[in-house]
């Protein structure tokens, strides 16, 4: 058995610190997901609009968020909000804002895709049954959309959890940062710790993301 330096994980509170860091990452992504799903659904409905202005605005928003690296967005929100607007927000809040803005854009696009995949005759049949547009959405379109959406949005959640590894750049101490702290604090006494500690971080991410991704697969099979 090669020396992976796993012993550093059992020094003091190191393992608890790693789990604490994981909780920070999961918490930030779950809060962002909880906000971006309803906002994303609204955005998706708006994006199906034929109005050219609404179309252009939502398109620009989506493309802007997609093109911008998340790290740049984090820096803009965390440091930019202070230098441009004089608001001092915490790293955690900045992360939630960026992940929500990003999640809303991605979710909006997923919802738009799901909505336009609903055949036109569904709308027409609803109209023939004298359903109002609102009722058409509530009883006919949304239930069908949700089925197509859930697997896709669950994938978005796992992507968000993994992307939290960037928030260490704005001073949020999450699981990866704790790992780096542990490795560096023991650089002299256990130089091989990097491998073992990063392996543990990988396992932690896996333990969180794998069940979520399994759930997506099951739902896809069930409703697909």
């Amino acid at each position, binding site marked *: 058995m090669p020396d992976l330096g796993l012993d550093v994980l059992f020094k*003091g509170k190191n393992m608890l610190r790693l789990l604490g860091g994981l909780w920070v990452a999961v918490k930030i992504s779950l809060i962002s997901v909880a906000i971006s799903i309803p906002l994303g659904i609204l955005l998706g409905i708006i994006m199906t609009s034929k109005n050219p202005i609404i179309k252009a605005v939502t398109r620009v928003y989506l493309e802007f968020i997609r093109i911008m690296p998340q790290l740049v967005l984090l820096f803009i929100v965390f440091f930019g909000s202070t230098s441009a607007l004089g608001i001092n927000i915490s790293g955690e809040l900045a992360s939630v804002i960026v992940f929500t803005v990003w999640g809303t854009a991605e979710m909006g696009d997923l919802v738009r895709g799901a909505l336009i995949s609903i055949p036109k005759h569904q709308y027409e049949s609803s109209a023939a049954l004298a359903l109002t547009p609102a009722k058409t959405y509530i009883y006919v379109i949304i239930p069908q959309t949700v089925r197509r959406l859930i697997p896709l949005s669950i994938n978005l959640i796992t992507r968000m959890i993994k992307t939290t590894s960037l928030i260490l*750049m704005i001073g949020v101490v999450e699981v990866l940062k704790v790992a780096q702290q542990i490795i560096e604090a023991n650089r002299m006494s256990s130089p091989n710790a990097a491998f073992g500690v990063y392996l543990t971080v990988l396992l932690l991410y896996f333990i969180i993301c794998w069940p979520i991704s399994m759930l997506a697969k099951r739902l896809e099979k069930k409703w697909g």
Partner: protein
Amino acid sequence: MKRLKVTTIIALALAAVLGLASCGASQPSGDTSSETGKTTAVYRTIDEIKDSGEINIGVFSDKHPFGYVDENSEYQGYDVYFARRIGEDLGVKVNFVSTEAANRTEYLKTGKVDIILANFTVTPERAEEVDFALPYMNVSLGVVSPESKPITSLDEWNADDEMIVISGTTAETYLTQNYPNIKLQKYDTYANAKSALENGTAAAWANDNTEVIAYSLSTTGYTVGIPSLGSKDTIAPAVSKGNETVLNWLNDEITSLGEEEFFHKDYEETLTDTYGLDYEEELVIEGGVPAE
């Protein structure tokens, strides 16, 4: 047509929600601007820090032994030891903020921390963006070589010998500029450079002197023949550009700490495990006055 109406209504509703949200967000900004009132500066003065009872100090959380977090979640290290003393002397609580090499300047420019104590090397480029106080540590390059064939000077370099450097470090730049005749063996990581030296592929290894000293002490058979090479740089606390009250307070603090040999004590508490006592005078600057 009808469907279009629904989407327009939702669009308006969402716009209203977002509008409200941004109003909510801008509310605190109104508060802070009225709080800071007259000054438009991003930083806090020394009196504002004292009144708030807390000081935000940016340190490294993963640079052993200067700023790191130990297994009990406590910040430790040479920089942190000084930061704690600052908090004590100001009579305020210290909030440690974990910073990265790449964002240290940004933290000061936006006033998100009051002081940076993250092993910040004084350079002319950085001095344009932040204000440095008096230095408290030296940093320069060092060269480590096998004890059996120690290299103590670079002037009579054997043309067949090669020197190990890590790509992108100051050692690489310095040697390329000042000793173009020395053949360099470049590695990307610390671990590769280390095994290259141990396998005898080169005569010596040049890096930050703190790194090579720590290496020679932890590995038998190697010695630092040249403990300081090239220009001596210093490490100093930094504050936001123009924050004179904090800068002056820090300079007075560093000068008066010199009388009690504070940084020697700091070295002995935090760095001896890594560097031993032999390099104390080499690394420590006491009272803000670098030795010649």
